[in-house]
């Protein structure tokens, strides 16, 4: 019994690891697709401001994600998906697109990726 339990824990950990790696891979593919579509940003050090006029100019699917993140301040793809009622993977893709476009910032803390517009000084 104890051996089975150990095996179960190990396989859960392994699956978690695979899921994690797949998510990271997904994010990297999103970045590559976006760069292919729009090219590398000229100066990624200067972020674009995510003001309301920019929000108005975004396509509907990205606007919903961006407005939700503005409301939450800082959030993971899970937090955003909870609000928008869309799949986590979908929100992760949109959030990463907004990062590439220069409107959001992303920070990894442990296994989780946090997205935000700007940190308060």
């Amino acid at each position, binding site marked *: 019994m104890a051996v089975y339990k150990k095996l179960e824990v190990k396989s859960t950990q392994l699956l978690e690891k695979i899921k994690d790696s797949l998510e990271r891979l997904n994010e990297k593919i999103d970045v590559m697709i976006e760069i292919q579509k729009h090219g590398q940003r000229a100066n990624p050090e200067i972020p674009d401001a995510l*003001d*309301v*006029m920019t*929000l108005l100019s975004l396509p509907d699917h990205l*606007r919903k994600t961006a*407005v939700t993140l503005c*409301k939450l301040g800082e959030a993971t793809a899970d937090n955003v998906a909870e609000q928008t009622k869309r799949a986590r993977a979908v929100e992760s893709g949109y959030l990463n697109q907004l990062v590439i476009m220069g409107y959001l910032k992303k920070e990894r803390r442990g296994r989780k990726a946090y997205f935000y517009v700007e940190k308060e000084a």
Partner: protein
Amino acid sequence: MGKIIALHSYKGGTGKTLLSVNLAATYVKKGKNVCLLDLDFRAPSLHAVFKTNNSERWLNDYLNGVCEIDKVLVDVTQEHGRSGKFFVGLANPATEAIREMSAKDRKWEMRALGRLLSLKTSLLNDMHHDYVILDTSPGLQYSSINAIVSADVVLVVTSLDASDIKGTQRMTRELYDLFDKKTGILMNKVLPEILSSKKEKQKFYKHFNSVHKLPILEAIPCFCDVLRAGGTYIFSEEKTEHPFTKTLDKLATKIEEF
């Protein structure tokens, strides 16, 4: 949980401030705790209505990030409260402040949006206001779009003017719909004869519901008494039996159920 209501319009002079003030007073009369904020930084007016300069700080300071919202709010319950508490947040009417606010850059506007969005937590959750009413500037301006994004409900004040109707239709398509906002129309300054009978009234509502493709929450007749008061006092507070006050009572209930 309370609601944030933004009053907006395509054109100026539609009666946003008058309706914001009187709607706020109506909710206070009903025992609600209300906070009324002047977000018209280009033409501030609430300081004149409430005849107060008691605020330590202005809303401009809050958006500039130099103070928190509690430093801005003025408690006018003693002068204007009936059953509920009444607070106002004023925009700085000094010419220098107006000039400064109209020269803000995109980054500042982005931060201002963040500060406005955080009012939901500070005013509704922490300070337990039932309603926060935002009086905005007309048209597509940063401060008014920021207010719309921050609001739970948007009330669009329009008149029967053809250009106002066309502009409101455009804003519905290109602004309110894009932010998925619960939006209702307030037809203001309607000639009383148009609303003379129940049948006429129904015809009017049906027509403008289809014109704006949004619910007409209320058609408010043009009352000479209200114009005569000239904003020197809060009409719905003083003239409790006047048809204008009764119309606002009805509107307040409709918004509660909206």
